[in-house]
């Protein structure tokens, strides 16, 4: 179907699992460390030995509360840990300790902007604590199970099914990730698996009151794929409906290589998890004092920073949103803006030149070869007419490649803009004398030829002439 969105409305709800930045696991003392050798970071509790018992990591709770505050949730004074039973090799106890009927947070919301500048507010259903499972790797002769990840603390953040486009889903995730990173709750790295997203996608006719059958989409392991996977799934469902088929409620995995979603084999025939409150743990008590303490200690979060950026730096909603995407990026931008004294220009350079280039080589702002101080200097150089905007781009290229300061590069390459009228006059005269036929053409009325002369002067001066000044001088000599 060509454009499913003309006929159908998309309904998306997202479930995010975020690993908490603790040093040890949720219920086990074993270290919470990514990338270790198999089964190096395990102990009796997370490997489910007989006789082992869970003890709650206080910091995990603190980080969870921080998330609840940052996402404007209602944080419950008492919540309950429950056992969720299923059999799988990466789940050593045969159950996962999670929260079921009484999670620690309900409600809350995430606000973000879209490309067209409009804003969205997506409500959350709940957030709850749970422990992560281990990893199984399939080899030719069998399956290898590594329990390093088993027991790592997670919060599961469930949104209401209020998103209506794949773009909304992508922006929601980016915003959620940035809040969690700002508040040092989670690293937000999808590729490393510490920030995971499942999407519930359904479609219905515009104006319909009932929701369509929803499909759960898993295995989206990069931000790049979120919009793609959802768009594909919407298309698939629309095609099915158009052909008179019914959508089956199922779980599908995103296959990035093929660019399609595929049915996943069910882990359990019937999902009867037999939840019951874990008798090894008392109810989780989160006191108002703890919430107060965590609220007071909260760093400036993206929304507050965004609002401040809009006011202080006169940025658009969208630009402010992009620049506050991460703590590091926001800090970087502020240093450029303050250092150069030109917030708008700073925003352009960071967003249009720097970010694009970093993205292309797969780097983050943390690894920028161009320092904030140097970029600020570059902006100042343009503002003071030391170099033209065009030359600045060349300088920037070199800055990105070498990490050198703009002043060093300008000096090395002799790129200082020529703004001395006397010097330029000489070149202008030379060019005019060398092109008599164009002069004649210009005087005959082809005023567009002005550009030709300007171009020739720029060529003569290797682009270093102040273009505005050249324009004026050429005009003066031709007209005069």
């Amino acid at each position, binding site marked *: 179907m060509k454009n499913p969105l003309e006929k159908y409305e998309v309904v998306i709800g997202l479930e995010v699992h975020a690993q908490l930045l*603790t*040093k*040890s696991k949720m219920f086990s*003392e*074993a*270290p*919470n*460390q990514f990338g270790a*050798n*198999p*089964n*190096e*970071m*395990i*102990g*009796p509790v997370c*490997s489910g*030995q007989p006789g082992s018992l869970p*003890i*709650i*990591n*206080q*910091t*995990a*709770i603190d980080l969870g509360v921080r998330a609840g505050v940052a996402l404007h949730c209602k944080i419950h004074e008492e919540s309950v840990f429950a056992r969720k039973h299923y*059999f799988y*090799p990466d789940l050593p106890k045969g159950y996962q300790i999670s929260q079921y009927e009484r999670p620690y947070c309900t409600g809350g919301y995430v606000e973000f902007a879209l490309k067209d500048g409009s804003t969205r507010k997506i409500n959350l259903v709940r957030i709850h604590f749970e422990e992560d499972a281990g990893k*199984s*790797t*399939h080899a*030719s*002769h*069998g*399956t*290898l*199970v*590594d*329990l390093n990840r088993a027991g790592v603390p997670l919060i599961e953040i469930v949104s209401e099914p209020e998103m209506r486009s794949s773009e909304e889903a992508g922006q929601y995730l980016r915003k959620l990730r940035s809040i969690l990173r700002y508040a040092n709750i989670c690293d937000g790295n999808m590729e490393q698996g510490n920030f995971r997203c499942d999407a519930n996608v359904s479609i219905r006719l515009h104006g319909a009151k009932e929701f369509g059958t929803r499909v759960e989409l898993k295995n989206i392991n990069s931000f790049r794929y979120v919009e793609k996977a959802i768009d594909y799934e919407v298309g698939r469902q629309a095609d099915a409906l158009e052909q008179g088929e019914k959508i089956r409620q199922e779980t599908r995995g995103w296959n990035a290589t093929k660019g399609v979603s595929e049915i996943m*084999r069910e882990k359990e*025939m*019937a999902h*009867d998890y*037999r939840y019951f409150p874990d*008798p090894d*743990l*008392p109810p*989780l008590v989160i006191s108002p004092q703890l919430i107060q303490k965590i609220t007071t200690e909260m760093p400036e979060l993206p929304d507050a920073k965004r609002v401040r950026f809009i006011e202080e730096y006169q940025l658009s909603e969208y630009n402010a949103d992009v620049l506050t995407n991460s703590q590091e990026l926001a800090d970087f931008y502020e240093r450029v803006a303050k250092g150069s004294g030109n917030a708008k220009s700073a925003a352009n350079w960071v967003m249009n030149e720097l970010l694009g280039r970093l993205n292309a080589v797969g780097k983050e702002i943390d690894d920028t070869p161009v320092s904030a101080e140097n970029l600020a200097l570059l902006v100042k150089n343009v503002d003071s007419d030391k170099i033209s905007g065009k030359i600045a781009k060349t300088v920037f290229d070199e800055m990105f490649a070498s990490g050198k300061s703009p002043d060093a590069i300008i000096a090395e390459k002799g790129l200082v803009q020529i703004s001395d009228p006397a010097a330029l006059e000489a070149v202008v005269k030379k060019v005019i004398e060398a092109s008599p036929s164009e002069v004649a053409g210009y005087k005959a009325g082809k005023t567009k030829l002005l550009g030709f002369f300007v171009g020739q002067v720029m060529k003569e001066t290797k682009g270093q002439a102040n273009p505005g000044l050249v324009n004026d001088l050429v005009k003066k000599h031709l007209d005069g």
Partner: protein
Amino acid sequence: MLSRDEVLKIARLAKLSLTEKEIEFYQQRLGRILTYVEELNALATADTSVVRTIPKDAVAFREDRPMPFSDVRELLKNAPASEADSFLLPQVME
């Protein structure tokens, strides 16, 4: 007496293989016990407060300090099969 289907359904959830004899045996035994425990339904418990078994002064928390286990190889030693520090399952997963 529970039906054969009911016993098989429970055995599936509990991941227990049963022989034919066992199915009959459990149909009977489970049936008997379930009949016995029916007596609880007669009791009025609507206003009963939640049962609390854990002492009020129990502390469920610990500091976020990683304590590596003394020897993780001991944990692998009890594995039915292992390879290169991983637990090993035979070719049974798709």
